[in-house]
Every structure is written in structure tokens, then in C-alpha cells.
């Protein structure tokens, strides 16, 4: 079988990898590159556990061929976790997760929502995370955590260390850069292209 040489940016770092045509993005990330936050759950796009950002949008990495990532910008929870911001802090503070299996998908889905809509309604939060199955929490603690992160729970921010300054807005440019929204340094496809 012809192996394909692909090039892409992973959490801001350029990578070159050889893949089989049938490798999924999820398999490449977990088995070849040691990125373990995306999980193999249903393996058919229903559960959201394998969610990653591909060119700034959440995708099911179990339903994307690794070859399709050639020239793209891939961001996983590992990349997001380096960014100090209210989302992870509030999710932790609200005990939003128990086993944590769904957490990477939920965090990235919430982040995608908040990037587009900094002050979503509860219904919009529910719709944004609808494709992420959590079997522990019943979702309430997750939704409360996300609401708090987007400033709906302002009292908590004011009382906490850092005070009101630590709002979503200050973290936004960093997140956008990590997600590939910074057009100044676009990733380059592998020079040979994703062709055999």
C-alpha cells in the first residue's frame, strides 16, 4: 500500500508524518503522535469523544482521514490546556466532569461556541455540546461550568483571585492563534503533497 507523506500544524508546531490512506486522524494522533486527549468512543461520529479542531472548527477525528489533514491546522485539548482562561478553570471549579472521558470533546465544543458567541444562552450551550455524550453527570454541571466561564456568573469572577479582569475576552487572541485563526503563519502542505 502506498504511504502518504503529509504535513500539518499540531498545536502550533509543524509536523510531518507518513500515513496509510486508511489511517484516520484519530489513529494518527493517538497511535503515532502520542496525543491522547481525543478518545476512541463510538468510532462513528455519534459520541464526540474524538473531537479536535481542524482549521478552527471542531470535527470528529474518527471520521477524518489522516491524509485529509495535510496542510491543515490541528488543535487538541493538549494545545488548549496551555492557555490560561476561564473555561478550564470554571469547569474544574464546578466539578463539571467525573470520569473525564467526554471532557476533551466538551471543552473544544464549548470553546468553539464561545469563540463565535461570547455570551451564549443556556439553550445555545446545550445545542453546542449536544453531540458529546456524557454518561456521568447528566450535563447540568457541565452547562453551569460553561455558563460561568462566559461571564454569566460574574459574581464568582469578582470574588475570585484576579477579579473581573480575568474574563473570556483577554484569552481570546491566544485561543484564536492556537486554533489557526492567525492567518500570518498558515501551515504548509507537505511539499510532495498528499499523493503517493
Amino acid at each position, binding site marked *: 500500500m*502506498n504511504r*502518504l507523506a503529509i504535513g500539518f500544524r499540531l498545536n502550533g508546531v509543524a509536523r510531518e508524518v507518513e500515513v496509510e490512506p486508511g489511517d484516520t486522524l484519530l489513529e494518527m494522533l493517538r497511535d503515532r503522535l502520542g496525543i491522547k486527549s481525543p478518545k476512541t468512543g463510538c*468510532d462513528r*461520529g455519534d459520541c464526540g469523544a474524538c*473531537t479536535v479542531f481542524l482549521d478552527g472548527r471542531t470535527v470528529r477525528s474518527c*471520521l477524518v*482521514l489522516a491524509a*485529509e489533514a495535510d496542510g491543515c491546522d490541528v488543535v487538541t485539548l493538549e494545545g488548549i490546556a496551555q492557555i490560561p482562561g476561564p473555561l478550564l478553570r470554571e469547569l474544574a471549579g464546578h466539578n463539571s466532569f467525573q470520569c473525564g472521558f467526554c471532557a476533551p470533546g466538551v471543552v473544544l465544543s464549548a470553546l468553539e461556541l464561545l469563540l463565535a458567541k461570547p455570551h451564549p444562552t443556556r439553550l445555545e450551550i446545550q445545542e453546542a455540546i*449536544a453531540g458529546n455524550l456524557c454518561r456521568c453527570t447528566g450535563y447540568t454541571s457541565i452547562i453551569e461550568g460553561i455558563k460561568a466561564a462566559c461571564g454569566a456568573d460574574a459574581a464568582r469572577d469578582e470574588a475570585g483571585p484576579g477579579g473581573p479582569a480575568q474574563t473570556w475576552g483577554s484569552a481570546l487572541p491566544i485561543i484564536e492563534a492556537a486554533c489557526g485563526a492567525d492567518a500570518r503563519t498558515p501551515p504548509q502542505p507537505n511539499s510532495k503533497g498528499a499523493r503517493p
Partner: protein
Amino acid sequence: MPITCEFEYHKPKSLLEALEVLARDGKNASVLAGGTDLLVWMKEGVRAPSAVVDVKGIGELHRLEIVDGALLAGACVTFTELLESAAVRDSLPLLWECSRTVASVGVRNRATLVGNICSAVPCLDSASALLAYEASVLVEGPVSRQIPVTQWFLGARETAIRAGELVTGLRIPLPDRKSGTCYVKLGRYRGEDLAQVGVGILALEGREYRIAFCAVAPAPARAARIERLLHGHDLSAELIRQAQQLVSEEIHPITDIRASREYRLHMAKIMLGRGLRAAVERLAGGGPALGESVI
């Protein structure tokens, strides 16, 4: 579940290049756009192509624009792109409302409208909008064809496409009159689920109604008898009751893991009634907000 079939991955930069691969590999080639159905089928062994043609590198297949009174949506246009298009929301609200109910954000970011009609599973949400707006499927291959969407769906997962052909997009005419629409979807819960019953309604000024069902027969279809009954009339409780009586002649639901035939029939009648009322209210400038469920 890994993909076990061996295939060559092609990413053509032009339509011509794509058609060459499809002409050479014929039925053994699979077209890849969003991949949200194709990869599942490859994992399950339902499809084992020798060539996968990723068409996302073909620029013209990404177009989404209104030309000569119709929306042209290329084969690579995702549901997210449709939902973010003000033109779609304003001019083709039924398509917008259908798109909103497809799977989840992470799937809609990848899944395409054209992929949806090429997969042609019976419960595809987008079909009722395409049938109501009387869209055409744009096909390239040995010859160029424009296939009315009413002739596109031949059965469950069966379409009018031939080996060596590629669907390049859809042409969806904008209604020539003021209209009100409503898509009603029944799932097991609100949120990500396949439709147990779906009905799309387009009410046009001048008392014309177009109604299309999905998930209640092998292929989605217009409800011609109900449309004839309503044609030229204002809606009344009695007329809606008569329309509901015709539902069992129009649709042929089955019992499966998600719902029984009886439940689907019963709900289809209720959904038709509420959808008709909502579409007519919206035509008059009121009614529930677009995207708000009426069941």
C-alpha cells in the same frame, strides 16, 4: 474499528482530474467530501473502494451563491456553511431549518448537503427542503446532467447517479413569491438524533402548499394528494383534519429500533397539522421563531 480496505487516496485539484479518476475506477471509486457517512461505511465494510476521491481540493465545488434567482450550493458546502449564510436563512428558510437539525455541530462542520443526498438514507433531513423548493442535482460525467430532485431518490441509499459521475452541486430555486416554511422533526430526544419522522412545509402566497416527508418510506417524497387537497384554500381546522386523514395514503413507515409504524403514522399527522399552522403563521409574519420546535 480500523478501515481495513486498501485504497488509493486521490485529491484532485480540478473537476477534470476528478472525473478522470472516476471514469477509470468506476464503481470502485468513492467520492469523499465530508466523510461522515463514507468513513463509517468503510469501517463497517459496507463500502470497500479501491480509490477514494477527495473533492475538497476543487475550488468551484465550494461555491455558495445566489445566481439568477437560485442558490447554487457546491458539493463541498457543509451544513455549517449553510447555517452561517444569511442568504440561505433569509431566502430558503426551510433549508436552513432542516440543516439545523442535522446531527451535531462537529458533524455539521464536516458533513455536506450534497453528501447527504448522495448517501440517500431514508431519514435525511435536507430532502424535505430540496423537494419543496424543487431543487435540481447538478451532475458531471461523460455527459452533464441536471436531475430534478424529485427523480433523484430511487430508494433507500439508492440514487439516480451512474458510475463515473460526480455530483458537483445543487441548484435550489428561490420561491418567486412570499413564503412561510416549517420543518418538523421527531427524534427520540431533542438534540443529536436521526429523524423518526420529518416533514417540511412550504406555504406560498396564493394558497399553494408544498409538503415533503422523510424517514417514513424508503425514499423521501412530496405528498401530492395532500397538496392537491389544500391547494387554493385557506387553512381551517376541518381542512387540516382532512389532510391528516390522507397521511396514511402518502407515507409508508416501518417499525424499527427507533419507533413503531403506528407511532410514526400518528406523529406524522400531528406534525403535519402543527407544521402547516406554523408555516402559514410565518407567511403572515408571525408564528414561532425559525428553528423553534413545534412539537
